[in-house]
């Protein structure tokens, strides 16, 4: 019996009334009253879902519940929110949320199935996330609304701290090598990623020429990007820095005493806090001085010096 068809065709009952309602109680009887034999297996419960009459050929598979899960992305501040649905046949499906909302969009903003955290102060915050999905809901295989909730923790705004030189060494061939380390104001380096922090350098050379040409002779016919600005992801808590001869390592004759000095700042930048999106100095100015000088025996040597550490080529070939 197709109730939808009865409605659409305006089929009257024995009293001439047509079936107008989409819910309620329906009484059925045959032409011979109690002597009529009626049998049916299933009534379709809504006017929208009456394509099917009778029993399903196979047992219906439907969703009994769902939940939300956060998946990390390349951006440590952003998660993809997936909906996990549990089905009566034992299967589990995962799909990106299609209707996600945040309880506090200034701390956790939503775009599609992605939620991005925005640390704002020195405290962590819990933000509720809710989702509504239309899933297959019962043994009649119709759709229904399913709601799921979870929460996400927005960590405190973190900034790098305790920046310090951990080593310096002469690597040979005029390469002065340094290593540095730092921590996080929250104690968790990972929080620096959520706060979108970088640690980097700004090195300037004499004058405004870019590239800065090294005085040659006697230095190799090299040049340097002026200024040199490099930023690195802060979450690793360490970096290395090489002051070297490149691309050429060949000093040019005639040798004579000469030197030049670059000025270096180490600095950080984070997307939150009092200095949001602004470079903050960590160490500097530091002088990186390269010099060619004459030994007492008349030969020449090259020295690069920074922070009382140096690398030398002595004598120059």
């Amino acid at each position, binding site marked *: 019996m197709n109730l939808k068809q009865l409605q659409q065709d305006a089929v009257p009952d024995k009293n001439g009334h047509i079936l107008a309602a989409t819910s309620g109680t329906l009484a059925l009887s045959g032409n011979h009253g109690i002597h009529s034999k009626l049998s049916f297996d299933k009534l379709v419960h809504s006017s929208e879902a009456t394509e099917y009459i009778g029993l399903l050929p196979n047992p219906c598979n439907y969703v009994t519940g769902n939940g939300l899960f956060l998946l990390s992305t390349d951006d440590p501040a952003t998660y993809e929110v997936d909906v996990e649905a549990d089905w009566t046949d034992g299967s589990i499906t995962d799909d990106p949320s299609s209707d996600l909302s945040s309880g506090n969009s200034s701390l956790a903003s939503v775009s599609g199935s992605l939620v991005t955290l925005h640390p704002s102060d020195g405290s962590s915050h819990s933000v509720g996330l809710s989702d509504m999905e239309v899933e297959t809901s019962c043994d009649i295989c119709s759709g229904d609304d399913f709601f799921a909730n979870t929460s996400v923790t927005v960590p405190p705004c973190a900034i790098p701290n305790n920046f310090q030189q951990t080593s310096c060494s002469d690597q040979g061939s005029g390469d002065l090598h340094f290593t540095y380390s730092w921590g996080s104001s929250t104690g968790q380096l990972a929080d620096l990623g959520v706060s979108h922090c970088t640690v980097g350098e700004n090195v300037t050379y004499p004058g405004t020429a870019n590239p800065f040409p090294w005085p040659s002779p006697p230095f190799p016919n090299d040049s340097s990007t002026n200024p040199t600005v490099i930023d690195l992801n802060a979450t690793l808590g360490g970096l290395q*820095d090489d002051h070297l001869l490149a691309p050429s390592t060949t000093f040019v004759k005639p040798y004579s005493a000469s030197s030049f000095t670059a000025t270096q700042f180490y600095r950080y930048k984070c997307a939150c806090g009092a200095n949001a999106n602004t470079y903050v100095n960590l160490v500097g100015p530091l002088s990186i001085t390269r010099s060619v000088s004459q030994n007492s025996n008349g030969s020449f040597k090259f020295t690069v010096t920074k922070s009382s550490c140096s690398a030398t080529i002595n004598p120059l070939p």
Partner: protein
Amino acid sequence: MRCAGVFFIVLLLAAWISPASRSDHVRWVEESLRSMQSIQPGMTRADLNKLFVAEGGIGSRTERVYVYRKCPYFKVRVEFEAPTSGAAQEQPADTIASISKPYLEWPVND
């Protein structure tokens, strides 16, 4: 020397170079490009070091600019997978997570 010539070709469109010489330079750049593009994510830092060398300036175990050994004006920015151990020291077995397209830039030597 050849690298420097290539660099000026790319930057200045050196019209004064003879057609035959220009053709050689273009072919060399093509070969270099194929060579550089042979480095793919999933390969190791040791593989990278066969064709490239780390540039001066700062870098970390997970981020570093490398220059082509045959011409240091050709550069790529390489990201490595985060180490499972806390060591900040670069390791030959570090796995490349991503590598940029080659680009041209003046040297960085700090």
